[in-house]
């Protein structure tokens, strides 16, 4: 057998071992599946979802609201910012969110903080899906209202009256919100938060943590 053929065969074997190792040892297969294939890449399609800011009861995937949300709703409405490590729109929106809530954090951080927004307490979450806990990651499809599967996603969770019961409800906005300027984006996020606060103030007395 020629020397070059042996080298080629050795190369194929080495590459096969490398791929196998990455799949079985390092979980790269699952990483690629969860973070690239199963998530709609908004920058790849060069589109932002149109955000419809109505508060709804039905969760994105039909699952129940997670425990950390139900519990924190007794303290105030929730604002959750979902993002990932590599996301241009997330980078564009981050300074706006930090400015509105007067917070400082890095993009890799998973942050929970009770913030005071114009006299109302808001549960603020900054969740990077590449670093968040499994429970936090699982909450992403629950609040993916329009089933976009893309980041950034901004969720406001509050409480609302529904046929005799006060229940958690939420709305979600995506990407750069379909707006061109930071000022417009900031205004839209503020409107979203204030709508959530208004609903919370009207209904929270009837909310009972299950």
């Amino acid at each position, binding site marked *: 057998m020629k020397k*070059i053929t042996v080298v080629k065969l050795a190369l194929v074997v080495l590459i096969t071992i490398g791929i196998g190792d990455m799949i079985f040892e390092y979980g790269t297969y699952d990483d690629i*599946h969860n973070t690239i294939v199963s998530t709609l890449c908004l920058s790849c399609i060069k589109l*932002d979802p149109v955000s419809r800011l109505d508060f709804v009861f039905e969760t994105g995937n039909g699952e129940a609201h997670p425990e950390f949300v139900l519990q924190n709703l007794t303290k105030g409405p929730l604002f959750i910012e979902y993002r990932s490590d590599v996301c241009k729109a997330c980078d564009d929106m981050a300074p706006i969110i930090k400015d509105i809530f007067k917070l400082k954090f890095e993009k890799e951080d998973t942050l929970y903080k009770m913030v005071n927004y114009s006299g109302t307490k808001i549960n603020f979450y900054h969740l990077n899906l590449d670093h968040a806990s499994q429970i936090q990651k699982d909450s992403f499809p629950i609040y993916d209202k329009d089933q976009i599967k893309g980041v950034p996603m901004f969720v406001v969770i509050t409480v609302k009256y529904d046929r005799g019961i006060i229940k958690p409800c939420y709305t979600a906005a995506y990407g750069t919100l379909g707006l061109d300027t930071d000022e417009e984006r900031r205004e839209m996020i503020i409107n979203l938060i204030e709508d959530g606060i208004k609903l919370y103030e009207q209904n929270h007395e009837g909310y009972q943590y299950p």
Partner: protein
Amino acid sequence: MNLRFKRLISQIIFFFSANLGLKLGGIFPGVTTGFCYPFFYCHACPSASAACPLRSIEIGVYRSNWNWRLILYPVLIIGFVGVISGRAVCGWACPIGLFQRVTGKVAKKIKKKYPAVRKLGQLRIEPFFRYVKYIAFIGLVVATPILIGFMFTDVCPIGYLVGTIPISILNPGEFTPNEFFYIAIIVFVLFIILIFLVERGWCRYFCPIGAMLAPFNKISMYQVVVNKDECIHCNICANDACPMGIDVPNMDRDPECILCGKCIEACPKKIISFKRA
């Protein structure tokens, strides 16, 4: 069965494999995997079954956030395919190659009809244009994501073709253009013009996956060989058959060869053949 038909069957099979993620109501749930395509296809396609290797690399290097697994994984997958068959994947598997198979027929007619277009392919600087794909790969897939966060896939015409267009049709009024949308339209229009003017124009000049696969032609186990001693230099293989515009009689493991086998079929002396190392 002739080579042309075999290649068509292969391209159709790979096209369906690349689109196994398509959900068909209660009939078919759709299959998605954690593999990277070894050819050019976009995971933003509503029916995609794997990831775009370029995007994985871009995420791996984005703003010097080195994630070696996301860089190595697609490189190893492409390396595996490359060592075995070189750029054969471009000729036998790539869905964009299948698309260009259709547009290539128009390109051939235009080339015959308009001498100016024919002359474009004969320009002395034409071979240098082929280096653009290497520059695109190193510049837009590796360098700009590291340095300024701009990624090739932000303006990729294939993403526009198989992602943006079907998603816009399937979800009318649900999406709005982002900041790269209009640049992507221009790139897409240029891409369409190119592939209608030059046969396999995308593969020749711009495909970054082609740039990754091309060097493997030098060491791949399969190659196209010409028996130069018996060649009568009729140039039918180079002028009429080869979609990549290669000087077939003088080629030796040419990085541009996509092993489509058109030259093998066209050769009147039957002195061109596939060879396994």
